[in-house]
């Protein structure tokens, strides 16, 4: 049985104060160079929520601007405004910081997130009014505490302060006095990850048009670890988030692999569905405070806005074959093995061409490749280049080597078979998966037939191995042969028409 992509959720959270207080570039600078010009300059480079909404790549991430439309906009993008500044899009939303702080409080089950009662009162209604989130958090929002209590916790109890507009509005307490794995710092990172994952899950469930109770299994693939001093990475973010999202019929687990985590998790999920173990599986990940403002020094030095000001989150729902939605091909997966080595050509061969060879396909038989979709607006000024473009150049070069492409076709390859990067540099978030929503839509509309999702992971950063890692898989058009309960051609057409109509309606509604 095939597994199909039933729906996706993609969310961003604008967190300017967390850039200043929780991003590791800034926290490190505060330790080694507390009086630095950079720390003084950075606040002037933070963007407003309005600017974040009208930023082209962000509107692409939530589905209001297609990758093709974004590609037609001349780079850089930070000095341009998208023609819309919508909070919501067909895939998800861009949540403002004040509501997210309340969502964190709602996701906290150990009485660790303490927000001032004034702050809660000022923003509670906004969060409850959010049709995706409101019902899930209703009854979970505390009234808040006095500012005296917040200040005492921050000054005397090692709580991590929470700011909004550079004003202290709350804190995250430590969950244990001695255990570093339950320190306030770790708890803040974990609750942020959980809350942004919950937000993506709620959008995905709605977008997939399924009942929450249909989800049987959730796999979390973020890059945080939760546990205590006796089991540092014990887990389980997946089930913790599923609880808040109200997926009462689900259990789950966490899958890790640095930035390759999402691709590994989707292979796991698709296999569980294909094996018939579960009918509906969700893959999700929340965002990472540590990476906020990671390349801020370069952005500030060049007079750019601090572009790494958003957390990212996503969720993908896979179900048993419905005869309509695009399938994940489990026969021809690419993988970087222990013996592959780390030369760029070996990595790309292992991930791309080995899978194509197995499938008997040529490089140009894949309509769109989605490797790491980091936004080049962020990475280019930081000296990391245009990451997706570099991947396309390598894939194209391999194509020429294999004789799949003429050398003269090489220059046009990235534009034809590639995408421009539109995802925030949140590690696992940009890794292949941001395109799944658009891939589903384009395959359903018939504009493409096949897409390859490529996840790569820098395992060496954990200092346990010097190896690199990655897996890839192909998403393809559903030929309608494998549907579970015989759907007629009429029904298929009806479903496609409905999907397209819903999409058009969501665009018009903005």
């Amino acid at each position, binding site marked *: 049985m095939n597994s199909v992509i039933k729906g996706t959720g993609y969310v961003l959270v604008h967190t300017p104060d967390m850039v200043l207080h929780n991003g590791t570039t800034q926290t*490190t*600078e505060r330790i*080694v*160079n507390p009086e*630095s010009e950079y720390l003084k300059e950075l606040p002037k480079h933070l963007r407003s929520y309005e600017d974040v909404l009208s930023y082209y790549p962000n509107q692409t991430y939530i589905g209001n601007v297609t990758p093709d439309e974004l590609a037609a906009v001349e780079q850089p993008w930070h000095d341009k405004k998208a023609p819309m500044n919508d909070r919501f899009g067909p895939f998800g939303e861009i949540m403002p910081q004040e509501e997210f702080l309340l969502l964190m409080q709602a996701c906290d089950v150990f009485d660790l997130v303490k927000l001032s009662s004034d702050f809660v009162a000022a923003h509670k209604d906004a969060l409850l009014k959010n049709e995706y989130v409101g019902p899930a958090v209703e009854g979970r929002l505390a009234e808040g505490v006095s500012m005296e209590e917040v200040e005492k916790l921050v000054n005397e109890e090692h709580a991590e302060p929470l700011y909004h507009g550079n004003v202290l509005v709350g804190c995250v307490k430590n969950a244990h006095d001695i255990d570093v794995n339950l320190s306030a710092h770790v708890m803040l990172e974990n609750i942020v990850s959980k809350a942004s994952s919950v937000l993506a899950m709620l959008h995905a469930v709605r977008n997939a048009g399924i009942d929450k109770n249909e989800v049987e299994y959730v796999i979390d693939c973020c890059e945080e670890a939760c546990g205590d001093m006796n089991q540092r990475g014990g887990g389980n973010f997946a089930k913790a988030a599923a609880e808040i999202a109200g997926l009462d019929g689900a259990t789950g687990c966490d899958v890790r692999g640095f930035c390759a985590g999402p691709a590994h998790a989707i292979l796991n999920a698709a296999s569980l569905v294909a094996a018939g173990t579960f009918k509906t599986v969700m893959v999700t990940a929340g965002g990472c405070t540590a990476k906020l403002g990671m390349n801020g*020094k370069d952005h500030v030095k060049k007079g750019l806005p601090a572009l790494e000001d958003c957390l990212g989150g996503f969720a993908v729902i896979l179900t048993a074959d419905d005869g309509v939605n695009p399938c994940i091909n489990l026969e021809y997966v690419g993988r970087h093995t222990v013996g592959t*080595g780390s*030369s*760029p*050509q*070996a990595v*790309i061969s292992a991930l791309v061409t080995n899978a194509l060879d197995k499938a008997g396909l040529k490089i140009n038989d894949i309509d769109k490749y989605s490797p790491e979709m980091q936004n080049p607006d962020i990475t*280019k000024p*930081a*000296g*990391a*280049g245009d990451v997706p473009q*570099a991947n396309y*150049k*390598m894939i194209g*070069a*391999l194509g020429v080597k294999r004789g799949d492409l003429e050398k003269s076709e090489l220059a046009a390859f990235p534009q034809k078979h590639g995408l421009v990067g539109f995802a925030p540099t949140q590690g696992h978030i940009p890794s292949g998966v941001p395109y799944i929503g658009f891939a589903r839509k384009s395959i359903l509309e018939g504009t493409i037939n096949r897409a390859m999702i490529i996840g790569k992971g820098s395992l060496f950063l954990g200092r346990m191995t010097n190896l690199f890692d990655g897996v890839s898989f192909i998403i393809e058009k559903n030929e309608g042969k494998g549907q579970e309960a015989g759907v007629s051609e009429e029904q298929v057409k009806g479903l496609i028409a409905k999907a397209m109509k819903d999409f058009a309606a969501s665009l018009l509604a903005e």
Partner: protein
Amino acid sequence: MDLENQKRVKDLAEEHGPENIVVLLGAAEAEASGLAAETVTNGDPTYAGPLTGVSLGLKVYHVCEPEVKAEFDPQVYEDQISMMEMVLDVDEICSEMNSIREQYCKY
């Protein structure tokens, strides 16, 4: 440059003598190459790491520069690195590296 890497560079230069050390870089862009090269020659230009204000003056090359490339086994270079020459702007990287070496390299 990563703070741990700066620390290792500093320690290794002390241990083996800066004149005996060569640093090889694999950065993706000219500017990043220049920053890393500056860090191991003139000191950390971002004032963040252990090499801040430490001018080691080490000999430093990007791995795609012709001077060092000529010393590698061509087949190994072909297998390990050659494809990246199509991706990187090698000319720009070379000119940036030359400029840093001229200014700060002591060996």
